[in-house]
């Protein structure tokens, strides 16, 4: 329940749509009950008048029956539209909320979840939230309102009838959903978990298809997918069986209610406390009230699965921030000198990646950092970017970076990371991600300096060529140069380049190094590299210990 309250409060801006859907849903049910009640009473009265050969003013009820039918039809349509609008608006709000929550968690927290699973979780969990309003909250609230109103009406006619109707409605609307909900909790959670597992397996299988094929391990992966799929389907079938039970039990309650109305109403007529014509009305009205109950039973059954999904989302979104901004950040210093003293960092307890690292970078100085792989070069870059917290001291212009606002700090830096991400859009958009305000000349220069001009000019679609998912449509070297152009176009005073010429052939490498030498003059530059060709870029080479 706490999860649902949280969802509703996250989407509270849509309260008007949400209450609108519920109000319309209530009216549609109420109008139908009234329609059936009037019809039953009308028929019985007409029959009594027919036998007694007396007059009966049929004009008003006959007209009312037809008008109610029209109201009912229009009300249902409006209710469907409004409740779906409410749901989609809620979903949009929740997606944005989640994206904003995930942002500060990247990469330190996010990388602990499997790549395929984060996206799978996000999409399927957020979308399954559409059940929360449409199939849980709305039917329950609508149902409770409708049942309350119906019972009041029957109570006014006859107490015994009201009590018996109340008890079948109670079983049908409260007991059954509770039992169903309890029964489906475990298979529901299992299905959600298996679904995520299946998604991971399939993602692995497709992304690694080539190697699995050559390693002869494709069959193994397929068998694993089949095994998890069987389990998922079995869990889904168990859920369907539970829902079959609940559906059938509702048939029993509604039918039993009809028989009970006949007996209670018959006795009341006999005692003269109920008009004979009202018996027909009572029996048919009771049957109509069950319209409110059907969705309610389904509603509580959706609850466990939806709660499991949302709990997973909350677990991810509520993860502690890997790096917190200071409460009152200091002003950004004018000097771009970087001073690292006794820097220590460990991913896991007892396995230090950086242990007492020192580095001084004067303003405008260009330093190349070399060292064996795994010695913490990329970690150092992450620390400078404030993606990870650290022990020891890292100062920019004499100010400890943990006292600065991280976003302001990053504004001062342009970075080519070790593994840049290419977005599934055009080359142009990928480069402009570095600087949205860049004009055509700046773009041209970045292309030129990253050694991309000739290649781009040779593409039929030029800068508008899509790079594909994860840059799959361009080669590794081309992707790296696109990311380099993205860093260059930002034109920040501090430049951090992790292997800027990786994957380039000798000719391109020479061109890029020459361009970079020009481009980086006057900036504070840190180049992580192990390529001798890059070393002339630097004023000084620092070797990192293993």
């Amino acid at each position, binding site marked *: 329940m706490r999860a649902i309250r949280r969802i509703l409060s996250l989407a509270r801006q849509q309260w008007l749509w949400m209450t609108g859907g519920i109000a319309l849903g209530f009216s549609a049910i109420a109008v139908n009950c009234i329609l059936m009640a009037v019809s039953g009473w009308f028929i019985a009265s007409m029959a009594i008048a027919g036998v007694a050969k007396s007059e009966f003013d049929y004009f008003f009820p006959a007209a009312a029956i037809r008008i109610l039918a029209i109201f*009912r039809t229009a009300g249902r349509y409006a209710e469907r539209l409004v409740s779906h609008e409410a749901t989609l608006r809620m979903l949009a709000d929740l997606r944005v909320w989640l994206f904003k929550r995930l942002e500060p968690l990247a990469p330190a927290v996010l990388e602990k979840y499997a790549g395929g699973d984060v996206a799978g979780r996000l999409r399927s969990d957020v979308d399954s939230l559409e059940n929360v309003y449409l199939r849980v909250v709305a039917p329950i609230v609508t149902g409770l309102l409708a049942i309350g109103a119906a019972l009041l009406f029957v109570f006014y006619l006859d107490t015994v009838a009201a009590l018996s109707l109340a008890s079948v409605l109670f079983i049908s609307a409260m007991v059954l959903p509770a039992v169903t909900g309890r029964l489906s909790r475990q298979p529901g959670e299992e299905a959600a978990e298996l679904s995520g597992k299946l998604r991971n397996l399939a993602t692995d299988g497709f992304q690694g298809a080539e190697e699995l094929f050559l390693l002869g391990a494709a069959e193994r992966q397929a068998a694993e997918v089949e095994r998890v799929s069987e389990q998922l389907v079995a869990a889904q079938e168990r859920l369907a069986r539970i829902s079959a039970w609940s559906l059938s039990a509702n048939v029993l309650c509604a039918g039993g209610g009809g028989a009970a109305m*006949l007996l209670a109403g018959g006795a009341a007529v006999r005692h003269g406390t109920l008009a004979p014509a009202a018996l027909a009305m009572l029996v048919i009205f009771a049957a109509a009230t069950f319209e409110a109950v059907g969705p309610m039973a389904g509603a509580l059954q959706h609850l466990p699965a939806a709660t499991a999904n949302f709990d997973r989302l909350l677990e991810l979104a509520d993860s502690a921030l890997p790096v917190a901004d200071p409460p009152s950040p200091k002003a950004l210093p004018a000097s771009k000198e970087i001073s690292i003293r006794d820097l220590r960092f460990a991913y896991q307890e007892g396995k230090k990646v950086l242990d007492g690292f020192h580095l001084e970078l004067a303003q405008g100085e260009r330093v190349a950092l070399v060292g064996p792989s795994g010695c913490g070069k990329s970690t150092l870059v992450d620390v400078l970017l404030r993606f990870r917290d650290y022990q020891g001291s890292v100062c920019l212009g004499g100010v400890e970076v943990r006292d600065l606002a991280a976003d302001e700090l990053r504004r001062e830096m342009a970075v080519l990371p070790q593994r840049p991400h290419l977005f599934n859009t055009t080359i142009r958009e990928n480069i402009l991600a570095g600087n949205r305000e860049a004009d055509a000349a700046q773009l041209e220069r970045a292309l030129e300096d990253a050694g991309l001009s000739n290649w781009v000019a040779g593409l039929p679609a030029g800068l508008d060529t899509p790079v594909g998912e994860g840059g799959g449509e361009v080669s590794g070297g081309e992707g790296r140069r696109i990311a380099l152009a993205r860093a260059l176009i930002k034109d920040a005073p501090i430049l951090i380049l992790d292997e800027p010429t990786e994957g380039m052939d000798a000719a391109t490498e020479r061109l890029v190094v020459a361009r970079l030498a020009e481009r980086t003059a006057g900036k504070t530059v840190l180049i992580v590299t192990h390529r001798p060709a890059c070393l002339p870029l630097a004023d000084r080479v620092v070797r990192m210990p293993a």
Partner: protein
Amino acid sequence: MTERLNTAETTPEQWLKKECLALRPLLLQAAGFGAVAGFLIVLQARLLASGCHQVIMEKAPVARIVPLAAFAALTVLVRTIFTLFAERQAAAASASLKSRVRSRLYRRLQELGPAGTVGEEAAPLVETVTTAVDGLDGYISRFLPQMVLAAAIPLCMMLFVLGVEWRAALVLLFSAPFIPFFMILIGKGSEAIHRRQWEQLSRMAGYLLDLIQGLPDLRMFQAAKREASEVARVSAEYRHATMAVLRIAFLSALTLEFFSTMGTAIVAVVVGFRLLSGALPLVDGLFVLFIAPEFYLPLRNLGLSHHARMQSLTAAERIFRLLSLPDVSGYQGTSALPPGPPSIRFQSVTFRYGGNRGGITELDLDIPGGSITALAGESGAGKTTVARLLVGLSRPESGRITVNGADLADLSPRAWHASIAWVPQKPFFFKGTVRENLLLGCPSASEEEIQTALADASADFVERLPLGLETPLGGGGAGLSGGEQRRLALARAFLRQASLVVLDEPTAGLDAANEEMVGNALRRLAKGRTVLVISHREETLRLVQRVAVMTGGRLQGVMTAADFLDRVSLTEAV
């Protein structure tokens, strides 16, 4: 090989029907149980109407209606049991269908994937295998049984009503056909929109995944805030598109609602006037009124399941399209591999990718058995294409590739793959332990072999991991540095005991010390094996005997490593 679908004479719905046909016993049971339950409603209505009649018209005491009420309750109980059975059989049919289709689809895609003919990104494929297959449920468990019930139950009920009051039966008869008619009319229009919405859903999935994977980059460039508003914009677009579908989709529900509510209302009025004229007993009048909403119910349920059908069909369409992709023109040969380290010859081999990726044209290349040959050239010169063709991931458009004189097309692909160790630029690691990932290529390797392979690949860092070989890796090798991933992939290649080793930039991302270690390992590995290495790095090239230089998809020349390095330093000097 999973068999390909014959698309010429089938549509996605025909395919789905055929799949369901195999489950006919379960589906017939579901419909049969449902029909019996429907008939029992008639009995129940008659009993209640009779009870009301006796109380209202004959002033009967309660004792006289108790047996009627009890009989009605018993009818309901039997109806309940039949409903339960019907639902369970439908669920069983759905489960069986989903399992079968998913298994077939996944195997098919995995088969097509390596050849690159699927031409799709992973995310939509994963969506199809998971969500789309689940989406078939509505068709089999709801639409098909409801279709039978919608034909049988109203007809049966109308005959009963005809027996007591033909005017009411006429109202039912005339209102009912409008329901399927309008439903189909409106359904046709919304089907197209529904398809568009699925595409949008898929794009939405890929879009969010892309942004989240690129979050670190977005943060580096202060672009995350802007993208958050993009998420809002794309979600709003999605909402508009979905609502456009729903406005039309709900019209068919509106039609149903209108005809069934109006039909019931008119039946009530017609019956009322017949009762007033004294021509009809109350029991018959009430019976007709009780039956009227139940008459429309199967039609309404069919209307509801019509949406389930459309959703299933859009899913089926995606599945069907993938299942009916043309077969990969993969190798089908059966000959055994000629013994000895393979000596390979490319004879005027041409292969082009679609779009702006390169390829190779009329390539002639010799890779002598037992040699270490390097492929060098600018990025996009076709080096990776040569490697893909060699290991058999792609097949040449023209020309042929021979292994020890035998055409690659004649060799058994299984035997050929078993003799290859391939280390691509981005090695694949699944979510599992280091050991599981190492054993991917040869599950039967002994502990000693693993240790040797790790040592050979300079992957001794594994020992220093907190859990050693049992250390869990995230998907994509998360938890290891780029260099560590490379060395682990090399260890996997060592374990393969292959006679041909293909390495794509094996030392990229390694520092000088590691590069040397890997170089030594490569030298050890090369003994008695043929090695093809894609690289333009001096340290690696010093290991090789021959360098094949490529430009623009063609072979520029083959030279000794010394000549090649001289030439490079010469151009550098110039």
